[in-house]
């Protein structure tokens, strides 16, 4: 009996639909205090003094400042970000002090009795201010990181081009908007600390807390609770809030819980990096790409956090899923006095893929060749060489996804039909259909997976229970279910024989962070290997693999040999075919890529300029769907976030802080804003993935933005090159258009 490829029942599904799944705020800790954060009100300044209003009963509270943190930095790539500001404030909403009180409302009341006095410094709030000389945030030039990719000779390519097309594309911040806000609890005993909460990466928090307090491995335990969505927003920020809870708990000598409210979560935590992307593209007379010269600038916010890695992925995806003999990508991520930007599904790629995909519409305009034909001529196929010189030998479903969507979405027919429709001035709306084709590298970039050296294990308990041990978290995407499916099939046992251990650093090995579309492909692959080890050893010991639970129990008793469990652990090894050079940025940037096409069908109201997406058709090559229902769920969910990115989600920054930090005025799509979707999964197996699987988590986020912008271009005749495309933006562009025309 096989369970891979079927819609096995979601492992923790019953608990979730019964309201029994325990999220961090659902946990009670005896004697727990409630923690809140004093945050900066200025974008850049020097703290002169912190006043605690003597009228407030401070004896009821525990207060912590920078002096209470042994090593005051949040360890990630760099150590530039303090846990609590000691002297210089570098962005608004930066944590300065912490207050804990037994009652939640009293803790919030205490916040109003703290006054911080600053010597204000001139801030650099925008990219141009940061690249000028307004303020120095990061020495020597406010640039956190630069990358350069070069293939062939871009200038020579330009000289031989028949068409040269330039374009500039912009995208703003995007808020992850998981429905459960960030929250963590911490308590100390026996000189060690336990931290529990909503997170994607328990071992990131583990490492950061060890560093903060100078503790050895075994004195820090990090436990993930049920997590109400992450999307990258709970990749690195839990290091901060977990650190805060631990500092307060240490000082209080009692457990402390910190749960953000929506306003604090939105204004203070990370967002998708805004970006400006410039393209200069040269093509032959028949529309073959000859040269791509691309410049990327991203806004990193005030601290390094994950910006270099986000920039890396942005850079590596900037040339799109097309073969071009001459490519240059120059990129940089810049420091500004705004809250640090960070991980968000897609991790840099949605920004640069928006640019390269919408640019096809501009190229189509310039060359007279439609963008579908241009894509067909240039898209990756097996044998193509990427911008980094990677030879795509297998599992390249780009054109298959394209043709599938074009057919199912009625793209060519509707394109013509809408052209006729839009010529009729009596119609109340314009109609448009647009498409985009994207690729997304699965797993960490380049040598990232080799550096992580992730470990995962299967445990056989003496009672004969089979348990998956991995730190990869269930955050809604179905980690538990996929892991159980992969292990069950590899062992040849029923799905319900396999249990999944909680993501608790006290119990599971470090299988790496739950990011980068790596959970199924990389960690699932490790578990498949561990299952093979397990099976081999059992078969060697007994002659055959147990077929009943009773036999499994007997096998377990002998294999465990008096111990409570026997573990089968594997560690990541880079596949032999993957070679990457970090210095030159050449080689196999990712082991493999997933591919997706989106066709967006929409209409625009001629009076209000509201865009209504009527239908999304998408085909996505993910190698193998271990669980098609979960895979479709990832695709539909990522697509909806892409629709939000394209049309609704507008972070308004005023004075370096989010002015619309509420779900009332930061608009994420509702069920009415999200169109019905026709989702097709295409399976071009990858030899190194478990059962052929590649990544799916981030891919769906990449294509809706440019597909919707292209559809708006057909509908309204306006190539709007900046997301989100709000009705106001269309109205404004229309009035300019008419004034010019």
């Amino acid at each position: 009996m096989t369970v891979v490829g079927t819609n096995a029942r979601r492992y923790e599904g019953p608990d979730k639909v019964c309201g029994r799944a325990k999220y961090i705020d659902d946990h009670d800790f005896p004697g727990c205090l409630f923690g809140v954060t004093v945050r900066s009100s200025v974008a850049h300044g020097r703290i002169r003094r912190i006043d605690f209003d003597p009228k407030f009963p401070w004896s009821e509270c525990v207060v912590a400042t920078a002096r209470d943190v042994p090593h005051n930095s949040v360890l990630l790539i760099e150590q530039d970000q303090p846990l609590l500001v000691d002297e210089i404030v570098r962005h608004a909403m930066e944590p300065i002090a912490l207050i804990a009180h037994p009652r939640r409302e009293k803790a919030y009341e205490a916040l109003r009795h703290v006054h911080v006095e600053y010597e204000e410094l001139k801030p650099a709030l925008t990219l141009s201010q940061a690249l000028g000389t307004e303020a120095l945030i990061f020495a020597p030039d406010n640039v956190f990181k630069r990358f350069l990719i070069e293939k062939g000779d871009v200038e020579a390519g330009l000289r031989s081009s028949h068409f040269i097309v330039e374009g500039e594309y912009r995208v703003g911040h995007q808020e992850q908007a998981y429905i459960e806000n960030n929250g963590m609890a911490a308590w100390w005993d026996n000189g060690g600390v336990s931290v529990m909460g909503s997170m994607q990466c328990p071992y990131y928090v583990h490492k950061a807390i060890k560093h903060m307090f100078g503790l050895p491995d075994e004195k820090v335990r990090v436990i993930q609770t049920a997590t109400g969505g992450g999307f990258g927003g709970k990749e690195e920020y839990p290091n901060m809030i977990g650190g805060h809870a631990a500092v307060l708990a240490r000082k209080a000598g009692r457990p402390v819980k910190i749960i953000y409210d929506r306003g604090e979560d939105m204004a203070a935590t990370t967002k998708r990096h805004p970006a400006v992307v410039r393209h200069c593209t040269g093509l032959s007379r028949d529309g073959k790409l000859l040269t791509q010269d691309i410049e990327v600038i991203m806004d990193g916010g005030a601290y390094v956090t994950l910006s270099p890695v986000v920039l890396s992925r942005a850079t590596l995806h900037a040339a799109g899923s097309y073969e071009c003999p001459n490519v240059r990508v120059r990129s940089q991520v810049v420091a500004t006095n705004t809250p640090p930007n960070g991980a968000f599904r897609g991790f840099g790629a949605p920004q640069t893929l928006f640019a390269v995909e919408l640019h096809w519409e501009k190229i189509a305009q310039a060359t007279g060749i439609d963008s579908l034909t241009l894509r067909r001529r240039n898209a990756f196929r097996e044998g193509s060489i990427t911008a980094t010189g990677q030879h795509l030998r297998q599992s390249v479903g780009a054109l298959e996804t394209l043709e599938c969507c074009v057919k199912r979405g009625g793209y060519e027919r509707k394109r013509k039909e809408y052209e006729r429709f839009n010529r009729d001035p009596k119609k109340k709306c314009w109609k448009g259909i647009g498409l985009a084709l994207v690729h997304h590298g699965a797993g960490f970039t380049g040598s990232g997976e080799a550096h992580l050296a992730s470990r995962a294990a299967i445990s056989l308990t003496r009672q004969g229970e089979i348990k998956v041990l991995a730190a990869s978290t269930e955050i809604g995407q179905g980690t538990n279910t996929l892991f159980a499916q992969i292990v069950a099939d590899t062992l040849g046992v029923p799905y319900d024989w396999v249990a999944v251990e909680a993501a608790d650093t006290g119990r599971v090995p470090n299988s790496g962070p739950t990011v980068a579309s790596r959970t199924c492909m990389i960690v699932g692959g490790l578990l498949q290997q561990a299952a093979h080890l397990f099976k081999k050893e059992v078969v060697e010991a007994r002659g055959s693999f147990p077929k009943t639970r009773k036999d499994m129990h007997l096998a377990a008793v002998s294999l465990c040999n008096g111990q409570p469990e026997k573990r089968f652990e594997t560690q990541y090894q880079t596949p032999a075919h993957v070679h990457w050079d970090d210095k030159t940025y050449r080689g196999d940037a990712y082991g493999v890529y997933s591919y997706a096409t989106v066709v967006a069908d929409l209409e625009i109201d001629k009076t209000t300029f509201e865009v209504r997406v009527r239908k999304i058709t998408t085909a996505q090559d993910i190698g193998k769907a271990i669980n098609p229902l979960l895979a479709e769920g990832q695709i539909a969910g990522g697509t909806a976030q892409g629709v939000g990115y394209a049309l609704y989600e507008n972070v308004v920054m005023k004075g370096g802080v989010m002015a619309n930090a509420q779900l009332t005025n930061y608009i994420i799509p509702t069920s009415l804003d999200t169109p019905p979707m026709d989702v097709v999964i295409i399976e071009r197996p990858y030899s190194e993935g478990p059962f052929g699987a590649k990544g799916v988590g981030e891919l769906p986020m990449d294509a809706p933005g440019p597909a919707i912008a292209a559809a708006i271009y057909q509908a309204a005749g306006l190539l709007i090159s900046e997301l989100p495309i709000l009705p106001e933006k269309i109205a404004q562009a229309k009035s300019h258009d008419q004034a010019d025309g």
Partner: protein
Amino acid sequence: MIKLTVNGKKRAFCGPPFKRLIDVLREDFRLTGAKEGCGEGECGACAVLVEGQAVNSCLIPVCQMDGRKIETIEALGTVQKLHPLQEAFIEEGGAQCGICTPGMLMTACAWLRSHRAPKHSLRAHGARPLLKYGRGTYRSPQDIRRVLAGNLCRCTGYQPIVNSVVRAMKRHRTPK
């Protein structure tokens, strides 16, 4: 003292009268199924039923609940005996991270009851159709989208949720 019925049980609350219903449910009655997502009635994660109608419990002071009947996710079904909607949410992938699920289910439940379609199954769970929504005719997926528009979900893209409600309706439509 405020007296109310929660999931069929008579309860009394003696704290501050303006305490939000969600806090009373979660803190005083230890019913943590309703979640706080925004605290201002936008996301619907805290939706519970008051006299059969789905409301955002973060917007309601408990003093308004005197004498009212409240139902929360805890009373819908159990892991051993799932409500048809809960079963459908698992089968169709309507729950991913699960944080919006209790509110989503309560809203869907109120709507289904008000249409009498799955009468017998909901009756079996102690429910009475108290309020009507719309005109009581056949529901299309678009109707479901309209009903759930006050419940935000960031994971699913809603399609699996719509499919879940459709499945629950189909399975439990009573023959005329």
